[in-house]
């Protein structure tokens, strides 16, 4: 019996040391982005400095989980085993600013639609943030 803690996600190859906090939070269904403690700008994916003001003072904050579809396509051919076409692939602009690639779970969706984060469970991996349209 070892007293070592279980391997981190990055040690398993499913994250990297800079994204570990993001994926750990996903396990609790919390969507994290970075915020610059100097200029207040949000960014994602994480980096050790602010792309906006170049300060090296980033913190993790929980995003509201709401945003707007910037672009969207329907993938109609098989790409990965886990997703059966057709499905929505989209870019969502979070209200805090960062843009995420994601899936939209809905019968219909289009550019400009307001969306809210939801979670897709995965085998052996942290839940994946996806989005669902708000009631129109």
């Amino acid at each position, binding site marked *: 019996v070892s007293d070592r803690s279980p391997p981190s996600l*990055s040690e398993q*190859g*499913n*994250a*990297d040391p800079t*994204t570990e906090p993001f*994926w750990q939070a996903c396990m609790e269904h919390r969507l994290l982005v970075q915020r610059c403690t100097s200029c207040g700008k949000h960014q994602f*994916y994480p980096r050790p400095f602010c792309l906006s003001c170049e300060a090296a003072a980033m913190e993790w904050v929980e995003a509201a989980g709401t945003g707007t579809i*910037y*672009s*969207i*396509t*329907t*993938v*109609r*051919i*098989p*790409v*990965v085993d*886990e*997703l059966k076409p057709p*499905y929505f*692939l*989209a*870019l969502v602009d979070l209200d805090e600013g960062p*843009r*995420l*690639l*994601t*899936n939209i779970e809905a019968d219909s969706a289009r*550019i400009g639609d307001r969306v809210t984060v939801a979670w897709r469970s*995965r085998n052996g*991996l942290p839940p*994946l943030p*996806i989005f669902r349209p708000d009631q129109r």
Partner: protein
Amino acid sequence: MPEFPPAYIVGVAETPLGKVTYHSELSMVAVAAQEALGEAGLQFRDIDALFTNYMGEEGSVQLGEYLGIRPRYAESSDMGGASFEFFVHHALLAVATGRCNVALIGYASRQRSRRSRPRAVSGNSGTLAAQFEAPYGIHFPIGHYALSAARYMHECGAKQEHLARVAVAARKWAALNPKAWIREPLTVDEVLSSPMICDPLHKLDCCLVTDGGGVVIVAGRERARDARKRPVRVLGAGESHTQWHVAQCPDLTVTPGVVSGRDAFGMAGIKPSDVHVFEPYDNFTHAVLLYLEDLGFCKKGEAGELVASGCLDPGGRLPSMTSGGGLSYNHPGALGILLLIEAVRQLRGEAGDRQVPNAEIAVAHGTGGLAFSTASTVVLARE
């Protein structure tokens, strides 16, 4: 004329094209190199600079060994399909500063024969793409480009018919090129009724997947005198790149061609209306609309109507994709080398049935990566 020691393209050749089962990638480059050197009146031993991409790890080293070249200037940067326009830019500067006299730029792919095109983003565990792109099933690279096309149509008012019209223009040119992969006539309706892959991109909005490649020889004035065919001057070049991950692109309706085009046209001392032949990297139909706007051939949002007017067609105001392009002639995974070759042939006046009359200035505009990650523009002129 620009103020720097001139560089010329002194030889060009395609590798075998289409479906190539009787050559390796290296031997394809070798036979094209011999043909291009024949045009240049040069031999392998004259080459002192080597540029390649996608020819394996340390690609220029592997290709140099195969061709027996030990360069004093070498590069195998991966700038995607636009790498070869980047390489002309770099060869131009290397020639101008005396770092080399004769540069060979070469590439070949057998992606069709090998069925080697992946559909998914590389699943290498731990990369940013594996963490934040692959799980969402983004097709590589049609998904990226579809997101760009959808946003462009939403913002700039382009219609599906405008996109389809680009494929129709390419096919009109391909009908005039005996080497084109598909030469049968094509209509807008046929493009629109081809299967949707990732909305709004139909199958016929997407380029071919073929084997192919080519070689381009760049030389300074001294060695250009040996050329057996009319040398073509490299008037200017420019380059830039933006995002790798599609979510990191701040504006999917604008490409780094804004920067590469501005620098290339500025160096050449020309404006868009001076261009007689345009060879854009037509990996997807909407891409050509973005280039027309980003390089200043028209204003943002006007390219759709411009293309619908027949501007790009044989006999049009801006003859474009004159080989038939990546959409109908050949797309060997990295089309940029073939754009340069076609531009040179047009400027030499040897393009046969598809020859643009009195072509004096041609622009090859490459793109690479995922949803316009990279761009490089090369301005060529008949002297």
